[in-house]
């Protein structure tokens, strides 16, 4: 899976929880939760959906690394490589 596929997958996951978002409306370098209206439950659902979609383990201690679209993609890319 290349970076572009991962990015598309992450956006698809975000859209299942917050379908109101538009691809172009996300600034990949600023925190996702500052741009998209996600409460704590939504955010946990996003993480669960990422786990399921990408078949990776995302321990709670890593949540801080999931701040922006770019860091999420980089995090998943690194996980998928190993």
């Amino acid at each position, binding site marked *: 899976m290349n970076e572009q596929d991962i990015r598309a997958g992450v956006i698809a996951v975000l*859209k*299942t929880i*917050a*379908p*109101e978002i538009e691809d172009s409306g996300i600034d990949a370098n600023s*925190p996702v*939760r*500052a741009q998209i*209206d*996600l*409460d*704590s*439950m*939504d*955010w*946990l659902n996003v993480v669960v959906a990422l786990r399921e979609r990408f078949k990776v383990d995302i321990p*709670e*201690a890593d*949540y*801080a690394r999931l701040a922006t679209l770019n860091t999420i993609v980089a995090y998943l890319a690194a996980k998928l490589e190993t």
Partner: protein
Amino acid sequence: MAVQELPRRLRKSAADLRVAPNLTDYESARAGFTWANATAELSGLPGGGMNIAYEAVDRHARSALADHVAFRFLASEGQSRAVSFGELARLTNRFANVLRRLGVVKGDRVFVLAGRIPELYVAVLGSFKNGSVVSPLFSAFGPEPIVTRVKLGRGKVLVTTDQLYRRKVEKVRSSLSTLEHVLVAGEAGGQVEIPGCLDLRRLMAEASEEFAIERTAAEDTALLHFTSGTTGTPKAAVHVHGAAVTHYVTGKSALDLHPEDVFWCTADPGWVTGTSYGIIAPLLLGVTSVVDECDFDAERWYRILQDERVTVWYTAPTAIRMLMKSGDELARKYRFPRLRFIASVGEPLNPEAVRWGMAVLGLPIHDNWWQTETGGIMIANTPAMDIKPGSMGKPLPGIDACIVQRREGTGIERIDEPDVEGELALKAGWPSMFRGYLDQEERYRGCFAGDYYLTGDLAKRDADGYFWFVGRVDDVIKSAGHLIGPFEVESALMEHPAVAEAGVIGKPDATVGELVKAFVSLKTGSSPTEALRAELLAHARKRLGAAVAPKEIEFRANLPRTRSGKIMRRLLKARELGLPEGDTTMLEEI
């Protein structure tokens, strides 16, 4: 220890208490308590009157506490900013001067819509000084809940941030006809220029640090807290400056705050807990509060408890359950030697969470109970008291609680027999009791029978005097400790052209208590597709915001209604849960 081994009663010994509790002998404290004596512990305004901000800030700023830290604000990137009582007095004076310069006077409504940033706290307290009435809005509300509340409260001023304004207010600004001033703080710092808005930081910089507090009386309105009912629009519960007496007393009795404490109330000031206990109560007691600007994150929270040396922690069952989910290993990376008392509010705390607190944090968690209308904690498990896991505890000194049954035509009947389910009622007259629902006198009077305020919560009292929450009398949804009115959600869904009718219920959820679930029937010509479900979800989220919008939407060919046309939410819920459907004689169609 397995769940079933958890004792029904956690007894405490002197060794469990690192600090002598403020409330030790429950019975004698109750017997000797009067609200008049409690009021005398506050200062009152010099020359007479009562103002929350004077009690909370200025009287400390003029004392040895002037340099004591009032708030330690933690920003996302690890920076923190400490604000002393002296500095808080000067900042809130500046804000009061900003209002005065704009012609905002006593009684005018100031709405605040922001995350947990310093400006929000300054605006709330500065508004009190000006005699203006504060109404907090939750920053996760979407445009519709904001519009509804600002209109009902006839807001004159809105204090918010540039990002929240752009995302939630700009498009609906023209419908907010009472709003004269919007004060905006730039989230990135620095100055902001938005048409129709004023830069809060510039106004603050220009304002004087001297301000003579408006002479408010104990019965003058200080706050409007919006809450949701089953039907109709949200209601604004009116609270007065004199409520500070309850905040002061309960900060001592239920939260056991001592002068040297570091207190962390995790509630957002967009809701009543975050105002009464996230702002007012610790300040009244001269106690340092930690305020975290970020949203929930398990590791961050453990780090804050450890690094900020939090001693008293007031949080909510949803947060505790999310911490439990994140695993004990994470918690064990941190140490909490300073932490000595944990309390929780918002919904009943399950016994398993009490056990988890003991195993992982080394302390049990003390549940307490109150609601928007009561303004402050009414019933609590206090430090010196045995905890009965799953119970909300016993009524605090000054509070007379009982179980009643409503009787048609004849008011209420008090039930003194233990373990009988009924409605929780409180003898009216404590200082933080709401004084009305704004412009809805009849709805307010409907909450009282004789001398008692009827809470709308079903509960029972055991033989030892502990109260146990059972459920709600009405259909109001309790999600993550917040009340959500099904009507508000249904109305937003009905605005979508494909929707014929909508029924919204609280679906039990292990983490948030209840999640908002919507049942929707469609108009002829619309099909129940996944694409439409996503569209409805987007529609609802854009209008209501994540905190109120449904988490689940299910299509139904039609919804059960009464003969008078009301959607039977009770029946939708019973079916969702596979429970007996109860009395369906009023049902029209299935």
